[in-house]
């Protein structure tokens, strides 16, 4: 069956195969939603599960994510308007003074597999920049990360800036990075802290539609 094939191609990290099989599935008349759910997301879920059991390593997950995206690029334009609206939007970046974005990239790769729209501001993002993008793009979620213990405090400056502009209220703020913990997240007024990219993905998977619905 074509979905088995898509799942296999994702597990193997074979982007070309994933693309070809997604195309075939659509040609066979399966709806975009079904291809997404039963093929692409199911394939990625299986890889995530294997990762949790330490049966695959991080690079394999990244390759799988890449393969999933190849298929997603075909499916996305076919998704009906209503589905698109519920996918949600995330703005992310590392805070000012911090160029360390390996963790951020991992989170991005993982979260992208949920089909959510991501605006990645990259590294060294000032509080003002975060705030202006939030103001303009009206995302559902803001994700910030810091690796340096000396820059993690900038996260609070970002939240302060959002408060100042009155755009903090309907926004979920998620923080991450090696020196960050849930206590820190709470103290600076963030909503969530997650330990790794997989926790973030699980959270997004389980809660995104609720968050999107609530904000409307």
């Amino acid at each position, binding site marked *: 069956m074509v979905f088995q094939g898509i799942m296999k191609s994702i597990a193997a990290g074979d982007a070309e195969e994933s693309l070809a099989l997604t195309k075939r599935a659509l040609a066979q008349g399966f709806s975009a939603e079904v291809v997404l759910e039963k093929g692409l997301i199911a394939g990625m879920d299986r890889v995530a599960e294997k990762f949790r059991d*330490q049966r695959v*390593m*991080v*690079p394999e997950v990244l390759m799988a994510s890449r393969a999933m995206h190849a298929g997603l690029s075909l499916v996305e334009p076919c998704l009906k308007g209503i589905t698109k609206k519920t996918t949600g939007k995330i703005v992310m970046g590392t805070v000012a*003074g911090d*160029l*360390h974005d*390996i963790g951020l990239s*991992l989170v991005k790769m993982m979260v992208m597999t949920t089909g959510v729209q991501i605006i990645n501001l990259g590294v*060294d993002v000032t509080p003002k920049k975060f705030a202006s993008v939030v103001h303009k793009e009206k995302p559902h979620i803001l994700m910030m990360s810091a690796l*340096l*213990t*000396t*820059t*993690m*405090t900038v996260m609070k400056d970002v939240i302060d800036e959002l408060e100042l502009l009155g755009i903090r209220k309907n926004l979920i703020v998620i923080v991450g990075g*090696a*020196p960050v913990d849930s*206590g*820190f997240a709470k103290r600076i007024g963030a909503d969530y802290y997650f330990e*790794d990219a997989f926790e973030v993905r699980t959270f997004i998977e389980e809660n995104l539609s609720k968050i999107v619905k609530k904000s409307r």
Partner: protein
Amino acid sequence: MEFTKLFTQTEVERVHEASLEILENVGMLVRNEKALDIFAKNGCQVDMETMMVKFPRQVVEKARQTFVPSYTFTAQDPKFDVTMPGDRPIVVTGSSAPNIIDPKTGEERRATSSDIANIAYLINELPGFDVFSISTLADDAPEGQFSMSRFYPALKNCKKPVRSNTPNMDDLKTVLELGALIAGSEEAYRQRPFINHHYCPVVSPLTFDVESTEAVIYLIEQGLPVYGTIVPNAGMTSPLSLMGTLTLGNAEFLGLATLIQMIRPGAPMIYAVLSTVADMRTGAYAPGAIETGMMQMAHTEMARFYNVPSGGYIGLTNAHSNDAQSGYETGMNTTGALLAGADLFNMGGLLGSLMAFDFGKAVIDNEIALMLKRMKKGYEYSEENLCLDLIAKIGPGGSYMDTDHTMKNMRSIAVLPKVATREMRRRWEDQGKPDAHSRAMKEANKILSKPNKSRFTEELDTKVRGHFPGLVAGDVDWSL
């Protein structure tokens, strides 16, 4: 003492050549404008738009000609000054952890300025440590005093060289102001700059940071002590091979060294690294892994080729408690580095890959430091030390217990540990079977329960507190 060599001379030269190729052909992304200007003025190909800098080999080779072989850490008390390579190995605490293992509860929590005061005093008293790199952050820092809440308790309670970083130029200048105030004047401070600055201006792969680079440029211009650590992470920010990571890290060191020598030829440097191999099962950071020690050994060999002091964050652990893993990770990696000839060991006191300070860990690391120093002191080869006359005098079947020679050497020839037990089992059982950590905590308690004689005088403290209103107390506050 002959040092361990991992490579032939040809191989060392090839790594150097390959690093030059990287700098010349791939180049570095330089996000600091001052650095871009300096590179442009000194013969690099600089694209101001993309911030890409390419280093012609003769530019790097020119910088290499002004490398100097020594580096000094100056202390508030001159008796604690240390210079590499002569005083090698120089043992430094690990720094800037956000957390501490609470000495009373054993639970991890955010560290405060009082914790820094306690740690500073402990490091001042532990003979294995040469430099106090401020171990933690201060969660109780008043608004605008992030760095002062670290440097003030550190300098107040420790007369050894103090080392740390600052997040921005304002903080750096305030800290220097504190230095001048303690020294009596700016001039006096410049003669003996006892705050030793450290940054990681290069973010792998091949990228210069904004703020850290700014600080390094400023300090080099000012003639103040500063050095950088190169931190590639194989599989993540550098190739997943030891050779690839060595070469990339070496290129990054040369890039930073070139910048420094362009600003002030002959400025002292340390070839410092924390090259690691990521645990690809989860992507976890693994500074305690044996590969960290292997990387340090190779970088040290490259540093010897360049004739600059070497070292880095070596002897860290991923363990979350002061347990066997903590001991073997610190022990094995530092031993490897020492045998390869490393000068500087940023190793003391931290658990959980730089996340939390532990008093017991610091005391055990002090003991490891003393062992490393013993190893470095080595055999002291001499005719006299062959003891031929003594061996003839005692002859077969005698004892050396009661000779003058033994009396003379009994306190100096072996490390006499305070934590490692050498008791008979029964005696140890009678004491309640204390493990290494609890014996170490007992040592920490013994030191920290006594008043700190090295603290600032009241006069100096009044002056400092008057100059910087709203400072944290910064005093030792210890009870178990």
